[in-house]
């Protein structure tokens, strides 16, 4: 099968794989797991024709280790998994962050914890994506809500990972991963693709972790004339271990600043519905499209509801959510978990706006009635 042309019926997972290929990904290592396996399937079938490599690894620990190695060797690389595999990847996710390795990790969330309900959707890995790996760190995570958006956000995930030299997580879910929708893949030459900055000094003057003015070090690949060393212990600009506490302080600060100082560049949201509303929904991923449906249903009942849809989740869009809280009567956070991102909403709630949770934990796309019930509760 070659690249699909024209308007297609396509599964979200397939759209993710094609987005990766169009973004320039040429290395996939993974261990198939429902409901993400179709991403691996497409990569196995298609990547060799693009000069890329697909490896089915022994497990998810090996998978993320392999994509880190591939990226350090100059390839755009990614892996795809679901909750149990995402848990196994946490340690090396930290390695990727600390060694500043551009790569993309796709988590198609299913019901957990543990093996949970393998074929059914959840959005319960949101805080794991943020804090699952140990130690202070920053993370970028994006959450697609349609098949078409899965394609474009996968491209954006690679662009952000290259731009910031850091792992980027796509927090999908079983609904988006395995729903088929009509999609049109654009002409690849029309896409804006970002590549990592290569060293612009001579090999003798190159230090692999000497940052550019935006805090991101230009990146040579293993095998280039510029010598690279990457360590998972505290390291200075040479890349070699350095155990001074002030070295780690400087490194941690730079790793945070290189992302958080550019939050506005990363944050992506959609405002949906009327400008002013009695109740504002805040949601992301599959739940957010149910919210769009609910905005229309509520309007039929004469209730003015709007939606702030978070397309990027991490870094959390503090300012935008704070503003939304400040100009609405109440907020309902709709998510397929027992309440995860609602904690972030409350954290930035400077106006003490009442915040309610619409929680869908039934192993299915969140029911519109759950969200409507929360809206009615908020209006009491």
């Amino acid at each position, binding site marked *: 099968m070659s690249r699909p042309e024209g*308007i*297609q*019926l396509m599964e979200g997972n397939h759209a993710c794989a094609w987005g990766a290929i169009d973004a320039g990904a040429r290395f996939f290592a993974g261990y198939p797991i*429902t409901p993400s396996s179709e991403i691996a399937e497409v990569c196995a079938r298609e990547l060799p024709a693009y000069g890329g490599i697909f490896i089915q690894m022994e497990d998810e620990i090996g998978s993320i280790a392999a994509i880190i190695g591939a990226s350090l060797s100059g390839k755009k690389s990614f892996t795809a998994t679901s909750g149990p595999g995402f848990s196994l990847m946490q340690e090396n996710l930290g390695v990727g962050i600390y060694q500043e390795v551009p790569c993309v990790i796709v988590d198609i969330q299913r019901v957990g914890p543990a093996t949970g309900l*393998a*074929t059914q959707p959840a959005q319960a890995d949101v805080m794991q994506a943020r804090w699952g790996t140990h130690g202070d760190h920053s993370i970028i995570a994006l959450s697609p809500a349609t098949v078409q958006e899965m394609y474009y956000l996968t491209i954006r995930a690679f662009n952000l990972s290259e731009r910031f030299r850091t792992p980027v997580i796509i927090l999908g879910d079983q*609904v988006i991963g*395995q*729903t*088929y*929708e*009509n999609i049109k893949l654009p002409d690849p030459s029309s896409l804006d693709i970002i590549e990592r900055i290569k060293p612009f000094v001579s090999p003798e003057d190159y230090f692999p972790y000497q940052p550019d003015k935006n805090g991101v070090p230009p990146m040579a690949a293993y095998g280039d004339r510029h010598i690279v060393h990457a360590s998972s212990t505290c390291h200075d600009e040479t890349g070699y271990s350095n155990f001074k506490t002030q070295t780690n302080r400087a490194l941690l600060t730079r790793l945070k600043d290189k992302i958080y100082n550019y939050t506005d560049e990363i944050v992506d949201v959609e405002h949906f519905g009327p400008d002013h509303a009695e109740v504002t929904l805040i949601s992301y991923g599959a739940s957010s*499209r*149910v919210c*769009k*449906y609910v905005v*229309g249903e509520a309007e039929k009942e004469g209730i003015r509801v709007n939606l702030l849809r978070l397309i990027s989740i991490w870094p959390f869009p503090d300012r935008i959510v704070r503003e939304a809280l400040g100009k609405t009567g109440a907020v309902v956070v709709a998510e397929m978990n027992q309440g995860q991102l609602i904690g972030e909403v409350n954290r930035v709630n400077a106006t003490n706006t009442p915040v309610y949770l619409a929680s869908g934990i039934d192993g299915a*796309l969140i029911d*519109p009635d759950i969200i409507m019930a929360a809206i009615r509760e908020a209006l009491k």
Partner: protein
Amino acid sequence: MKNNWQVVLAGEGGQGLILAGRILSEAAIIDGNNVSLTSSYGIAARGGYSEAQVVISEQELYYPKCVSPDLILALTREAYNRYIDFVNNDCLVIYDSKEIANPMGRNELGYDFKEALLTLGNLKVINSLFLGIILKNREIVSRESMISALKKNMPPKILDINLEAFNYGMEM
């Protein structure tokens, strides 16, 4: 012609329900509509409850599942029982009369699928058969688009018998 449809195809694993959902969805795309196809299945490859839901709309699709189906195909008792209490008055239920002996709803049509398949001489073409029956009763997509989608999705070796089954369903 109505352009918003919610269709549930329900039965058990192995009946080609998800492939039929795909064919119906692709036909709707050929007709110029937006489509969302979801499926629900257990961890077994064959047997057990299985369903495909197809939502078709001219507008952007927010809720990708069927909220109030316009048509339900129920090929097993379990499939029938799952939905029958929730259908609205306008919903057409097409069921297997050999599987569901005493139907309860008003807007229902029973078909003897087994007999039709035996006449066709192939028990595996049940999905093309019921797509024909569905299209005969509700003009969800154009016949030309359905035939194009069937041709795209059926391997050449079994295309003719599937087209025969589809046409047979259109006449039942």
